[in-house]
């Protein structure tokens, strides 16, 4: 799945959504009508996690990369654990402040949907893996809430 936005629309319900991307077009090139890929950055992923907590999801873990896009061992000083605590406490600013200036970026987050046990992986650039049909409605609602001011 690909997280998308329709830049011309103001109303979050029309603006944000999910679309299938079966041929795995790179997000930068993804187009579908007026929809383009929502190129989510690290902070967008954290904001989406905070918002997904309200829809019955729990963070399993984060993976990180450095400033040259190289994947970093996720045991950096217990960073993943520290972030999970901040996200479950809904402290987005605290999470951003923790990472800011470290030159470490959230690359991917795995979450469990407590209502059905599915594990969903969300990556930067808005790529979502493992979402089944019944995960999509809460994902879209969480996007609309998290990206309202985007």
């Amino acid at each position, binding site marked *: 799945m690909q997280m998308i936005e329709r830049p011309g629309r103001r109303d979050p319900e029309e603006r944000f959504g999910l679309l299938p991307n079966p041929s795995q077009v790179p997000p930068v090139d993804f187009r579908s009508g007026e929809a383009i890929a929502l190129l989510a950055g690290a902070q967008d992923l954290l904001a989406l996690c905070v918002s997904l907590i309200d829809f019955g999801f729990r963070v399993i873990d984060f993976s990180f990369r450095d400033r040259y896009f190289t994947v970093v061992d996720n045991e950096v000083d217990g960073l993943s654990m520290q972030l999970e605590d901040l996200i479950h406490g809904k402290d987005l600013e605290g999470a951003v402040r923790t990472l800011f*200036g470290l030159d470490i970026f959230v690359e991917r987050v795995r979450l469990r949907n407590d209502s059905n046990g599915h594990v969903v992986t969300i990556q930067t650039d808005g790529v979502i893996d493992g979402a089944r049909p019944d995960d999509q409605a809460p994902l879209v609602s969480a996007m609309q809430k998290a990206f309202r001011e985007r």
Partner: protein
Amino acid sequence: VKPSVAVGVLETVRVATGIALYLALNKWAATLTQTLGTNASFIPPLMTVLEVIISALVVVFVSGYVLGRPTVSLLWRTEANGLPQSGRVNLPAQGQSVHLQIELHGDTLLRRTLSLICKRYPLELTLEVSPADSLAMRIEYQLPLTGVIVANSKIIFQSVDLRPGMNRTLQLTIRRSDGSSFPIPVSVGVSSRFAGARMLGWVGLVRFESGISGFNLGGA
């Protein structure tokens, strides 16, 4: 940023203050010479020098504290604790993250006035890279948490806060998106506008320094 009508008015006021003051001092110097009742030949040139010095000092004061244009500088860093970059910044072929800070200096009466005006008509700052389709930019983190968006080849600061000092920091990732593998230069342009048509001629009153002129995107 092109100079605007308001900048012209400002510069005229500055020069006019100097000239008016010089002329006013001329009268005062004549009166002073008369009062002193001396006819020594060194007095007139001395008075002229004094008048010029006083006028210049007042103009410097007016420029520095009253009518001085505030300057918004952009600081670009390729490492969290590195020094700000200037000129053309080298980026590896696959791209990397950069830090961008926005800082304001020049605390004058004009800055305070503009700051009040900005509350009603926000000042929007746009950075645009060209060629537009060579780079894909993404905001990773920003503090405060909202207010900057990336739209295609543009980074838009929706409301620049005219408080002195550091007022916004963000981390961006910059990637190559044109599919080519040869090195290319990418330039960065700065433009700004106040929201609201009434403010059309006012833009040049805030000076912008883009910090860098662009990037050299490395070849594969």
